């Protein structure tokens, strides 16, 4: 494929309210710089994230999707992240089977105290998606008003 150095991906991140959103917030208040490619959607729990959210984000023009929740054992609702883990392992494998590069669908555990980890995660996701280029497989086509 062609050079993709000037490609700035759009990443949609679904963050759980209790850990990852607070972790991202901490990164902000601690003035930690991380790539501005990420658009955050706050959900109450990673277990809230319907796999169809991922599919729909990719359809609507996201180049990559990140789901992030509390570390195992730390879920505010005790078990939500465990369910999410099963779901996304399958979803990720399945999308890879259709030809969606695994770099586009990522999952992470980021706690409320891990502002620095949030930065690392985002850097890794953005670099991963940059390497595979824009997502145009089953993106909705433009209407061109």
């Amino acid at each position, binding site marked *: 494929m062609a050079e993709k150095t000037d490609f700035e991906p759009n990443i949609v991140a679904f963050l759980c309210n209790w850990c990852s959103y607070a972790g991202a917030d901490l990164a902000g208040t601690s003035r930690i710089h991380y790539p501005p490619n990420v658009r955050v959607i706050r959900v109450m729990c990673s277990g809230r994230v319907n796999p169809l959210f991922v599919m729909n984000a990719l359809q609507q023009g996201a180049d990559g999707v990140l789901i992030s929740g509390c570390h195992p054992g730390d879920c505010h609702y005790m078990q939500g992240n465990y369910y999410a883990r099963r779901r996304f392992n399958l979803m990720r494998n399945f999308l890879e*089977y259709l030809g969606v590069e695994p770099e586009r669908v990522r999952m992470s555990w980021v706690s409320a105290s891990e502002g620095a980890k949030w930065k690392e995660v985002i850097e890794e996701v953005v670099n991963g998606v940059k390497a595979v280029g824009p997502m145009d497989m089953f993106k909705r086509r433009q209407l061109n008003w």
Partner: protein
Amino acid sequence: MVDIEKLREIAREIISRDDVRQLIGYRQGTYGFRARPAFVTDPGEVDKLIFSPACVNNLATYITLEERLPVPRGQEPDLRKVAVMVKGCDSRALVQQMEEKAYERERILVLGIPCTGVVDMDKVEKRFPGVLARGEIVLEGDKFLLTYDGKEEEVAKGELLADKCTRCRYPTPLVYDQLLDEEVARFADDDYADVEALEKRSAEEKWAYWEEKFSRCIRCYSCRNVCPMCYCEDCVLDRLNPQWMRRSVDVSENTAYHIARAYHLAGRCIQCGECQRVCPVDIPLMELNRKFYKDVEELYDYEPGTNAEAPPLLSTFKVDDREDFIM
């Protein structure tokens, strides 16, 4: 082989019972080698029942397909049992439906058919084109014997056998009240060769493959409707708000549809192959379902439709589930 006289006798007995509303079985189709579902409510109708390798339909679908209309005031709901004929693969649909508490075991009466394999009707009609008169197929040893128009032909079993049967792990039903024949020992196994071959391709090749298939889809939803596991009363595809999949037919929405359909069957698909059989534009839907089937078996050691007592795969977890993909 199922003794048809014995089948009809048992059916007559069952449908004469006061606590049985109807019996779902098979009967001769309207042309050629086809067979089709039969719905028997009266002892006088049992003589049309048959079983042969042409009986491809998974009748477990009808248990959940039937509309449940509101019962008018003053009337009692009809709680009588439904009797259903199932092959090995079909019986797993019943197990999975019960695992998900779709209905109580007491609601159904299961006539199990130990199955030695059914035909792929496309293969039959390709091999014997233009047969209008009703024909018959029987399996004798390793050969299918086809009788039609006064002719009789033998074809090696492998040439007409449905693909799903070459991977069948459960030829004898896993749930039944009465078994119509001797148990059949497992004669095949699944090595996921088809899924693995596709997994090995590059991302571009995979998408090129699926894009071509998905672009053919006309969204008739026959794959959803025929599926014994697709029994939601309010399907996500029909919902307008939120509308996850638009009704418009293009590669984007078709792909979304196929992702959603296949994902909803993750850890639920019991490999009866009906979706692929009914698809008018020959989309290899089982290759999608089988990817999940394989992953679920490898990652979670779970096989859908084999244990009605087990909790459904995605409504449970283990603390030590794999998480090497998580950052």
